């Protein structure tokens, strides 16, 4: 019991550190990547001076994330005269917390056997009590192992929009209200296509459990390709990616907060760390969306041919690896995949122009939705005929 608690506390800490760390990293990646794409240098003015010397550590501008955080914490927390102060203060939390919660069901590694992990400790007699303590227990590297993981993802990420709507409504500002209205309608339009894309995925995998989905993706297709979702369901991948970016309210779907029309959209009236929370939740959402993409379509923590015991190549060769190495490799694979998926999202964000509002609606309802429905019908048909 205590062991379970301990391990899950570690998982929780890892998940939160993972999200916040990567979100901070992505603020930097976004700046630098957009700069390099635009032939610029990018933010590099922040530095840490090594004490007692004149050496300034610039580290390619990595400290800008820290500077941003410090700035937002120290700024004046201006509150507009609004008619509902409670909702106004609640909104940033409602926007940020669900985003953090989604990650709970995402598996970020394979099976962890803490007892085996202690094998590498050089003095076996020192590690022995700990080994006895953990015994032969094994854990999925996941904060909450739920059978209906994918439904939890949909349910919780749907809650996030309430924060947006609440923010727009309670700040007593027309720009905010417009942004909130746009966010709400956009969310309704795109959640449907997203759900349909996910259903076709569920039909393919035959499970709602994210862990099972990832395990399914460790197989091999036609002898060469890994059975990743992107190869099994390429159209669903595109649909999900589009809908996920739209959910995340980023360019080209950033109508709820488009600067050129609505100042800052639904968080116009927010300042200091409240505004920072909205920004942070946007970047955490990049991490979460990337993690979902990786889990659902890009094989999760799987590398091709990597099993819990080591590599097993298709030609029959095997390369056994100790458990700690496998765990480390899986966690690392997941992280690298998430970072790459996030970079891809940032690339999209800096490449595409924003939709006009009617185009957005037409795109969602007349293009994505029929396509998602068709994809679902085709998938069901294929499954039914057992092709």
């Amino acid at each position, binding site marked *: 019991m205590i062991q379970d608690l301990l391990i899950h506390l570690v998982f929780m800490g890892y998940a939160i550190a993972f999200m916040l760390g990567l979100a901070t990293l992505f603020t930097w990646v976004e700046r630098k*990547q957009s*700069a*390099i794409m635009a*032939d610029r240098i990018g933010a590099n003015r922040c530095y840490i001076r090594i004490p007692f010397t004149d050496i300034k550590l610039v580290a390619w501008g990595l400290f800008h994330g820290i500077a941003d955080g410090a700035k937002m914490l120290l700024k004046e927390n201006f509150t507009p005269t609004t008619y509902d102060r409670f909702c106004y203060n609640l909104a940033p939390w409602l926007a940020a917390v669900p985003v953090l919660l989604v990650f709970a069901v995402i598996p970020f590694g394979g099976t962890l056997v803490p007892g085996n992990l202690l094998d590498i400790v050089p003095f076996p007699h020192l590690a022995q009590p700990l080994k006895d303590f953990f015994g032969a227990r094994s854990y999925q590297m996941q904060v909450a192992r739920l059978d209906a993981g994918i439904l939890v993802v949909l349910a919780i990420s749907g809650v996030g929009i309430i924060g947006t709507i609440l923010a727009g409504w309670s700040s007593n500002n027309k720009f905010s209200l417009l942004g909130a209205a746009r966010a709400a309608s956009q969310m309704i339009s795109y959640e449907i296509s997203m759900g349909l894309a996910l259903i076709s995925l569920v039909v393919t995998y035959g499970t709602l459990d994210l862990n099972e989905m990832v395990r399914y993706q460790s197989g091999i297709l036609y002898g060469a390709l890994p059975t990743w979702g992107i190869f099994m369901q390429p159209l669903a991948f595109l649909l999900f990616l589009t809908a996920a970016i739209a959910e995340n309210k980023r360019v080209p779907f950033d109508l709820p907060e488009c600067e050129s029309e609505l100042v800052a959209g639904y968080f116009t009236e927010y300042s200091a760390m409240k505004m920072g929370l909205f920004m942070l939740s946007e970047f955490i959402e990049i991490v979460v969306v990337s993690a979902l993409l990786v889990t659902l379509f890009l094989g999760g923590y799987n590398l091709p041919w990597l099993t819990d015991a080591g590599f097993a190549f298709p030609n029959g060769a095997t390369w056994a690896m100790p458990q700690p190495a496998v765990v480390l490799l899986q966690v690392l694979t997941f992280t690298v995949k998430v970072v790459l998926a996030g970079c891809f999202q940032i*690339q*999209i964000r*800096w*490449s595409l122009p924003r939709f006009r509002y009617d185009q957005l609606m037409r*795109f969602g309802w007349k*293009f994505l939705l029929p396509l998602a429905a068709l994809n679902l019908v085709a998938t069901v048909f294929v499954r039914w005929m057992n092709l």
Partner: protein
Amino acid sequence: MNKDYWNKPAMGLWERLYIFEVIRGLCITGSVFFGNMWKWLTLRKGALTAYYPEEVRSDYSPNNRGRHVLTQRENGEVQCVSCNMCATVCPAYCIEILSTANFDDVFHPKAPERFEIDYSRCIFCGFCVEACPEDAIRMIKDIPDFPAFDRDTMCAPLDLLLNWRPTRDPAKVYPTQPQNGEVHPWAA
């Protein structure tokens, strides 16, 4: 109701399908990104912008003249006679001159004690050079190096104006100095 716009986009089916154009756009930005990234990784500069003020941008015109120098006489004194013409003509009002008198030097009884050009305001028009009757102020092919957090610190004082370049301007043709025995009319 569908309104007809005069600038209706002429899109074919290919563009209307959107996804292919998106991929093309991503390829363009991606190629720029990876091209620049490759330059950075091979220790070259992958950006067109300059890292101001640590770097001087490379695309200044060869004719750009951005620094003032005050020329000197052969004996090392300021050529300027503090006539205030440059300060008068300056459209940005950024030259400040405080004069001092030395009646022993009869040819140049007046000289600047302070001569300051405020580079936070100078527009580099070169009028001061045109106006100077003594050829005492010139502009050289360089840029002033004054990024600062405080505009009060962006003034160039006399000694800086004298020392930005080697004290004597090699291109300068010096006016003939008074020979021994020659006497200024005032002193006669």
